[in-house]
C-alpha cells in the first residue's frame, strides 16, 4: 500500500494518520484531538465490527466502552445493518409533523417493554434532547420549574440537561443555574429530602447508576426511597436509562430491578443499535398532558426519524430475546468473577469493583488511577475510558452479546493492563 493512498475511503482520503490529526486540530476540535494524543491514546477509528474497533494503523481494540452502551449490540451488528439497509428501500427520516408508521410501531413496542404506568412516547434525536424533553414535560405536568439532580450527575449537554450536570460544562457556556437546577450528593437521602421539602421541585432526575461519575452504586434502598420522597413532596421521578437500559443490568430497564415505576423514563445510545441516532422519552399518563394540549409543543425534525425508529425496533427486539437475557447473565457472572480474581492479585491497587450486570466501574488507588489503566489497556488492545467526573474509576462496559472466548481474551488483556498501570503508578510515586 503506497503512502499516498494510505487512507483512501472513496468519499475522502488522507495521506497519513498524521494528516488526519493535523486537520482534525485545524478544522474540527483542537482540544479533544490534543487531549487524546497527549493521553497516549492516538486513536483514529477505521474498521469496526462486532466488539472490535481498529485504529487506522490496523491496531485492534476490544471495545469495552461502547460509547456508554451505544454499541451494546456490537459495531455494525449484522441484524442492525440488514434492518436499516432493507428499511432504506422504503423509508427515509419521515415527516415529523404527521402521524407515522415507524414512530407508531416503535412507540407501541417501547410501551409494551416498559413499566406499566408509562403510556406514551416522545422522540428526540439524541440523549440530551430526550432529557430536555423529559424536563420540559415534568415542568408542564407539575407547573413547577426546579429540577433536582445529584452532584456529578451527567444527563447530556443540551440546553436544559447541561444544568443538571457538573458545572464544568455549564459554566463554560454561562449556563449554570443552581437556582433552577439544585444539586445534592448521591446516596444522601437527608440532603434530598431537605430540598424536596420546599415542594417546589418539579422532578428529581436520576441515572439509575451514574455513569460519568464512575458508576457509584446506589445504596440498597436508595432509589426506592428517592421515589417515595418524590411521591411525598409531589415531585416526579425521571429515570435516565440512557446507559442502564437495554439489558445492560440484566433486565431490559435497570430501574425495574428496583421495582420503581418512574414517571418518565429516558432511553438513548443503545436504542440506536449504534447505527442511526434516535432517543426516546416514555411518560406516564399524568405527564402526557401537553401532547394533547399542544401536540406541537416540542418540535424536532430529526427526532424519531423513521429509519431510526426501525433501528430502534430491531435493537429492542434483540435486547428482549430470552437468549440475550441469558447471555447477559452469563457474561456479567463470568467477567465479574474474572475481575474479582484480578483484584485478588492486586488488592493494593485495584481496590473496588462496582458492578450491576455488564455496567461496571473499576476503582484504583490513585486519584488519576483510571487514566493510567486506560492507557495501558489501550496498549494491550482494550478500549475502556476513565470516568470524567471521578478519574479513579475506569468505566468498563462489555457488550451484551460477548462470546465466551472474547470474554476470556478481554480478561487476559485487562489483567496485564492493570498490572502495568500499577507498576507505572508505583514508579511515579517513587519520584514524587
Amino acid at each position, binding site marked *: 500500500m503506497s503512502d499516498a493512498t494510505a487512507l483512501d475511503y472513496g*468519499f475522502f482520503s488522507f495521506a497519513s494518520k498524521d494528516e488526519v490529526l493535523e486537520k482534525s486540530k485545524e478544522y474540527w476540535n483542537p482540544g479533544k484531538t490534543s487531549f487524546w494524543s497527549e493521553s497516549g491514546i492516538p486513536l483514529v477509528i477505521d474498521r469496526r465490527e462486532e466488539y472490535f474497533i481498529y485504529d487506522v494503523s490496523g491496531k485492534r481494540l476490544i471495545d469495552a466502552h461502547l460509547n456508554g452502551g451505544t454499541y451494546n449490540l456490537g459495531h455494525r451488528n449484522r441484524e442492525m445493518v440488514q434492518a436499516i439497509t432493507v428499511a432504506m428501500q422504503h423509508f427515509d427520516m419521515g415527516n415529523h409533523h404527521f402521524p407515522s408508521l415507524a414512530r407508531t410501531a416503535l412507540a407501541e413496542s417501547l410501551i409494551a417493554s416498559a413499566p*406499566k404506568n408509562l403510556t406514551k412516547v416522545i422522540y428526540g434525536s439524541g440523549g440530551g434532547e430526550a432529557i430536555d424533553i423529559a424536563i420540559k414535560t415534568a415542568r408542564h405536568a407539575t407547573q413547577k420549574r426546579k429540577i433536582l439532580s445529584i452532584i456529578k450527575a451527567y444527563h447530556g449537554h443540551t440546553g436544559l440537561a447541561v444544568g443538571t450536570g457538573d458545572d464544568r460544562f455549564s459554566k463554560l457556556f454561562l449556563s449554570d443555574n443552581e437556582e433552577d437546577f439544585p444539586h445534592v450528593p448521591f446516596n444522601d437521602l437527608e440532603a434530598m429530602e431537605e430540598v424536596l421539602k420546599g415542594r417546589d421541585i418539579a422532578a428529581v432526575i436520576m441515572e439509575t447508576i451514574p455513569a460519568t461519575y464512575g458508576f457509584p452504586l446506589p445504596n440498597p434502598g436508595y432509589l*426506592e426511597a428517592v421515589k417515595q420522597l418524590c411521591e411525598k413532596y409531589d415531585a416526579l421521578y425521571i429515570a435516565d436509562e440512557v446507559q442502564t437500559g437495554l439489558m445492560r443490568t*440484566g433486565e431490559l430497564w435497570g430501574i425495574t430491578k428496583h421495582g420503581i*415505576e418512574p414517571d418518565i423514563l429516558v432511553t438513548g445510545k443503545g436504542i440506536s443499535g449504534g447505527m442511526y441516532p434516535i432517543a426516546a422519552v416514555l411518560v406516564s399518563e399524568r405527564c402526557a398532558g401537553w401532547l394533547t394540549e399542544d401536540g406541537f409543543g416540542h418540535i424536532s425534525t430529526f427526532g424519531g426519524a423513521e429509519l431510526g425508529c426501525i433501528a430502534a425496533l430491531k435493537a429492542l427486539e434483540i435486547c428482549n430475546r430470552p*437468549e440475550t437475557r441469558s447471555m447477559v447473565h452469563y457474561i456479567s457472572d463470568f467477567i465479574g468473577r474474572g475481575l474479582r480474581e484480578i483484584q485478588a492479585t492486586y488488592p493494593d491497587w485495584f481496590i473496588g469493583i462496582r*458492578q*450491576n450486570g455488564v455496567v461496571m466501574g473499576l476503582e484504583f488507588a490513585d486519584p488519576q488511577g483510571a487514566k493510567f489503566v486506560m492507557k495501558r489497556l489501550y496498549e494491550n488492545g482494550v478500549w475502556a475510558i476513565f470516568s470524567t467526573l471521578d478519574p479513579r474509576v475506569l468505566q468498563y462496559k462489555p457488550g451484551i452479546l460477548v462470546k*465466551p472466548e472474547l470474554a476470556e481474551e478481554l480478561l487476559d488483556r485487562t489483567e496485564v493492563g492493570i498490572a502495568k498501570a500499577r507498576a507505572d503508578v508505583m514508579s511515579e510515586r517513587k519520584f514524587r
Partner: protein
Amino acid sequence: MVDTMFEMPLDPAGVPRGRAMIERAEWAARAFATYDAATVQRIVDATAQAGAARSKEFAEWAVRETGYGVAEHKLLKNLACSTGIAAKYRASDYIDVVIDSSDKMVEVPRPAGVVLALTPSTNPVATVMFKIMLALLTRNAIVISPHPYAKAVCAEAARTMAAAAVAAGAPDGCIQVVEEPSIPLINALMTDPRTDVILATGGTPMVRAAYRSGNPAIGVGPGNVPVLVDATADLNATAQRIVESKSFDNSILCTNESVLIVEESAAAALLNAMTRAGAHLLSDDERDRVRDLVFPEGHFDPKWVGKDATAIAAAANVRVNARTKILVAPFDLVVPEEPLAHEKLCPVLGLVRVPNVSRGIDAAQAVLRITGQGHSAAIHSSNPQTIMAFSAAVRVLRVSVNVGNSLGASGIETNLAPTMTIGTGFLGRSSVGENLEPKHLINWTRIAYNTDALVPMADFAGLTPWHTPTAAVPAYPRASNDLTAAPLVPSTVAMSNDAPDELRDEIRRLIIEELNAIVRG
C-alpha cells in the same frame, strides 16, 4: 479502507434468533462442562421424570400433529427414551476422571459442547427426549431443531424438560428448541462454526447436508430391513414377533421389517401362524392394488407413513378382518424396480420365498443393495452356522436374532444400546457404526506420562477438576453492593416470550404489586 459494500446477503427470517440460541448454548455448555457427577445425576433424573410424566400426553399429541403411528407405542418409546435412558446409564460414568496407573495415563472426559439435534417426524418426541438425555448425561448443551410436521409437540416436550433441568440446577439455556424450523434456519445452524456436533436423524438429504456442513456430524442412513426365517426357527414365536414388530407404531421406526424372506419349507406354517397373529396375506390381485396405492408411479407415497393396516387395506379396496395389524405382500424377485422391495414406513411387509438359506442370504443382500446398507437385518433361526453366514454376508452393522427388529435393533428388546439413532457406519456413509449412545458425545483428554520407569507418575487419586454448583447458573446479576438481595424481577418476566400474553400480564401485575409492597415497606 472501505470494504466492498452492499455485499451482505440478507439472513432469512428466524436465522438470527437461531444463531442467538447457539451463542447462548455456547455459554451454557461451558458452564455445564465443569459440573460434578452427582449434580448431573440429579439433573438427569429430574429431566427424565419431567419428560416421562407427560409421555402419554405427548404420545397422543404427536399422533394428532403428525397423523402417524400408534399412541400407545409412542408412549412406550417416550418412556424408554426418558426414564428408560436414565436407568440404563445410571451405572455409567461420563464425568469422573479415569486413572490408569499401569499405563501411566489419566483420562479426563471433555463434552462436545454445543450439540445440534435434528429430529424426525416419525419418532418425534422419543428422539427429542433421547437426544436431550444423551446431552445431559455427557454435560453437553443441546439445541433441537424438530421436524416441521412435529414442531409443536417437540417444542413443548423440550421446554418441559428444559424447565426441569434448570430447576434441578442445570445451566440456563442448556436445552433449547427451535420453534419455527425451516430449511434456511437448519442450514444456518448446521454450518455455524459454534455448533460442535450435529446429530442428524431424518431423511437422507438432511443427513447428507449435515455431513457437508463442515462441522462434525453423526448422521445415519436409511434402513430397509430384510428378515430371514429358516426352517429351524420356532415358527409360532417368530410369527408373533414379526407381526408385533411390523405393527409397532405402524412401522414408523427405521428398524421395522421391510421384506420377509422365508425358506420355502417353513413358509406355510409361518404364514399360518402370522395370520393368526394379525397378518393378512394379500392375494396377487390385492397385492397389486396395495402396491399401486402405497407406491403410485413406483414411489412411496408418504401419506401412508405410520397409517393403520386396516386404513391402507380399505383404501386399496381389500377386505380385511378389523383386527388386522399388517398386510403381507408376496413377490418373487428382489430388484430395484420392484417397489415392494423398498423401505416401507407403513405396516406393509414384503414377502419372498426362497428354496434354501443360501438363496435367502442372497435375497437379503439384494434388499440392501436398494437401500439400507449399514443399518440392520434380522434372522429367526436356531442354527448358529446360518446366523453366522447371514451376519457376515449381509452388509449391516447389527443383526437381531429371534426378536422383532423394530425394538431389537433399537436396543429396547436386545442388549444393544437403546437408541433412536442407528449408526450405519462406513457402509451407510456415517461416522458412527453403533447405536448412538452417550459416549459418542464426549472426547477424552489423555494425560500421558513418560514410559521411562525412572519418571514416576504422580498420585491423582481423589483429584477432580469438577465442582458442584451452589446456586443458579449463571448467577442473577445483582448489584455488587447488594449481593444478598433477592432478584426483584424474577426471570419469568423477561422470559415472557415463552408465556402467553394474559399469563405474562398476570405475572407482571403480581410482581409489581409485590414490589410496591416491598417499596412501601
